[in-house]
């Protein structure tokens, strides 16, 4: 089906029958379709439009690629099951929102990997695009290369069966290099095949297939040799012992780097969205975002985002203010958000807010700081954000007892927290949002009780309190990458303790579901064999697992059985501090020795203080 047919059928036969049709129409301000581009990239976030369009990384890459005259980036997101059903009925493949060109006609298909629970949306997208699911089955040069990036790429093994390439680390500079390298490698490949003698008449299908596979490996090899930070899983072979324990991974031939170091954008001032995409329908984070800092020096031991985004790089005050005002003018949006993992740690944050808040207030634009570390919040900051934003403030102590705080490496002094809430109250704030985790390594019943106690104490601060209790999921590339994940019963009982003890009507308690956390836990430290599981999950109909109402535990149980995989192995992996890990060949910028050291410190933190 060509783009014209697709739009016609969409308009007549598909969109009138689905929920939220504006998700699928494209046409946003600054959306860009360039039919004459030399290399075409389709950017995807494996969830629905409202979620995908809220992700900053995708917008950054979209803007960078479309600035280049020779290249083009378009978008496609997951479609909701009602849309998928209707598209299948009408024979419409997954298409790009800009040109309505089918996804399979792109040269590259890039996926932003931000949450393991979105991984189950990838196979359905490939299937709807009419592509073979497994990378090994896509040897034909007409298929797009699947490229993964984002925090999920720090453990690419889980998705290696599906993807051709992963970019490790920052994409700003690498994305153009990748497209250049592809163009070059393809040209060379064509020259080579033209200069070699033509295939004999009657060449067998299997021989042709073999040549295609070789051709694709050669293409991947050329690309990883040209672009740093690029990982092609097909060029590596992992090994396991009889018990299924990972023992190492090796390149399949010479000239393939044994280890892939992540890309680091050295100057954050150079990261800017010049032509922001303005969605036509409401998205989750509907605001102009300026990333003021990348990386976090705090070293909270559970935090994958912190450990994989080092070193800390900051956007300067002048540049931040300039970008915020420019984005506001170009987007017409009513809110600016200063993004980072811990905005209060930016040395110029007070000065930025002092300058930006009044300038935005004059334009009736709100200013928000989504992540604040308690230790770094100052009264001046609260004053400034109060001028424009009356919504809630979020604090994430994660753990309540001093010994567990010490063990996870994140301190939140109860007295300081209380004082902070009193400041908030005097400044007129009405909503406090608190985040805690249960199931942390070495957590005892007393630690969980301490969480309930802290919630109860803070709930008397003088306003509304919303509390989210999530379950700790050990993540690769963090000091807790060896930690066992809490079991179903432990998580339930911890949730029970908090539910029973927190009684205030001024508190709204929300728990992350146990089953959701366990699936996340299995995928988080998955290895090459996890591809089987994702395939089985796809066949069982698992999708939109990030949406708690969509995750179906019985489907997952069947998927585990079908794939012959015991969740237990991945929830409590059999790896010691000295053992090789399935993601060790991916350089996150932090030495394994440092992680080991941190893990030891966590284990040696005193039990009672």
């Amino acid at each position, binding site marked *: 089906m060509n783009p014209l047919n697709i*739009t016609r059928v*969409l*308009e*007549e*036969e598909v*969109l*009138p*029958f689905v929920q939220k*049709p*504006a998700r*699928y*129409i*494209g*046409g*946003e*301000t600054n959306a860009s379709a360039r039919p004459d581009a030399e290399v075409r990239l389709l950017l995807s976030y494996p969830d629905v439009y409202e979620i995908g369009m809220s992700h900053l990384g995708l917008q950054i890459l979209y803007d960078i690629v479309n600035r280049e005259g020779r290249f083009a980036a378009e978008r496609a997101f997951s479609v909701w099951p009602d849309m998928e059903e209707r598209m299948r009925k009408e024979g419409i493949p997954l298409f790009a929102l800009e040109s309505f060109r089918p996804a399979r006609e792109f040269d590259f298909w890039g996926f932003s990997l931000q949450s393991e629970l979105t991984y189950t949306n990838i196979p359905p997208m490939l299937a709807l695009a009419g592509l073979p699911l497994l990378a090994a089955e896509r040897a034909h040069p007409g298929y797009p290369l699947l490229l993964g990036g984002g925090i999920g790429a720090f453990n690419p093994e889980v998705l290696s069966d599906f993807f051709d390439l992963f970019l490790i680390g920052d994409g700003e500079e690498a994305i153009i290099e990748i497209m250049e390298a592809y163009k070059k490698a393809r040209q060379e490949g064509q020259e080579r095949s033209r200069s070699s003698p033509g295939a004999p008449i009657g060449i067998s299908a299997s021989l042709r297939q073999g040549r295609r596979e070789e051709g694709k490996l050669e293409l991947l090899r050329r690309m990883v040799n040209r672009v740093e930070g690029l990982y092609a899983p097909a060029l590596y072979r992992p090994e396991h012992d009889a018990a299924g324990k990972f023992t190492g991974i090796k390149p399949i031939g010479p000239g393939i780097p044994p280890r892939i170091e992540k890309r680091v954008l050295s100057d954050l001032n150079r990261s800017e969205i010049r032509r922001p995409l*303005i969605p*036509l*329908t*409401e998205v989750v984070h509907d605001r102009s975002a300026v990333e003021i800092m990348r990386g976090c020096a705090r070293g909270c031991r559970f935090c994958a985002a912190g450990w994989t985004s080092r070193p800390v790089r900051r956007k300067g005050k002048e540049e931040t203010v300039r970008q915020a005002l420019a984005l506001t*003018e*170009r*987007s*017409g*949006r009513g809110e600016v958000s200063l993004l980072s993992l811990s905005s209060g740690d930016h040395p110029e944050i007070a000065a930025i807010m002092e300058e930006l808040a009044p300038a935005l207030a004059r334009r*009736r634009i709100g200013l928000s700081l989504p992540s604040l570390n308690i230790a770094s919040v100052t009264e001046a900051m609260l004053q400034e954000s109060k001028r424009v934003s*009356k919504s809630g403030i979020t604090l994430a102590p994660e753990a309540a007892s001093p010994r567990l705080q010490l063990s996870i490496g994140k301190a939140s002094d109860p007295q300081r927290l209380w004082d902070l809430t009193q400041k908030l109250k005097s400044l007129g704030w009405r909503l406090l949002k608190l985040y805690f985790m249960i199931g942390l390594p070495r957590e005892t019943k007393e630690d969980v009780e301490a969480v309930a106690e802290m919630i109860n104490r803070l709930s008397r601060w003088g306003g509304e309190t919303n509390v989210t209790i999530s379950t700790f999921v050990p993540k690769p590339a963090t000091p807790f990458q060896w930690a066992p994940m809490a079991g179903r019963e432990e998580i339930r009982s911890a949730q029970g303790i908090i539910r029973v003890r927190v009684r205030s009507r001024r508190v709204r308690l929300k728990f992350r579901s146990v089953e959701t956390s366990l699936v996340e836990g299995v995928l988080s430290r998955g290895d090459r064999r996890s591809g089987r599981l994702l395939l089985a999950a796809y066949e069982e109909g698992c999708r939109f697992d990030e949406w708690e109402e969509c995750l179906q535990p019985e489907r997952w149980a069947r998927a585990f059985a079908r794939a012959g995989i015991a969740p237990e192995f991945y929830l409590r992996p059999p790896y010691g501090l000295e053992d090789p890990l399935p993601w060790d060949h991916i350089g996150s910028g932090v030495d394994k020795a440092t992680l080991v050291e941190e893990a030891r410190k966590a284990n040696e933190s005193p039990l009672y203080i």
Partner: protein
Amino acid sequence: MKVRYTYSKIGLARFISHLDLMRVLFRSFSRAGIPVAYSQGFTPHPRFEFCPPLKVGMEGLRELCDAELMGEIDIPAAIATLGGILPSGISIGGARALPPSSPTIGAAIQGARYSVRLLPDWRLAGEDLEAFLGLSEAKVSRLREGRERVSDARRGVRALSLSPGDGGGRELSIEVALPGASPTDVLQALLARPAEDLRGARWTRLGFIGEGL
């Protein structure tokens, strides 16, 4: 100054909901540098007034929106600027300054005109229209959020006509008072088919009827 804008929402943009469209217009005005006045109070809102919402999926050719502005603007220049900003499928057809005493959109609108493209198997003749207009009441029912809702499809219907449409088909035009029956109810009553069968119908709101619009 108060300015009345006429705009259209056609093609794929007809799938943008009323609420989303309002946001699109606010943002576009803001980007165009048009000084929109805001309401007072805890959460100030831009002072806009819109015509009754279009159903998602329905095109609108002459939709209306009034904007209260702080100070005077050059109207043709503002239309040109908006033209470069609005997403595809949404465009400003015209704008004029309103005299201070003019009635609001809500007060001025007395009715609206719609057209719907008839599918080949939707049998409808001139007599059917006359018969319908001769009725005093035409009850139709549809499911809404799981509950059956009965309404009178005859209420406020002033005129019906059939005409040849694009591509050899036929179109039904409906003129209905506001408040009055929903045009989709009118079609449902005329065809005597369940509402679900008519979901894919291609509707257009042609414009509004009223003094001084």
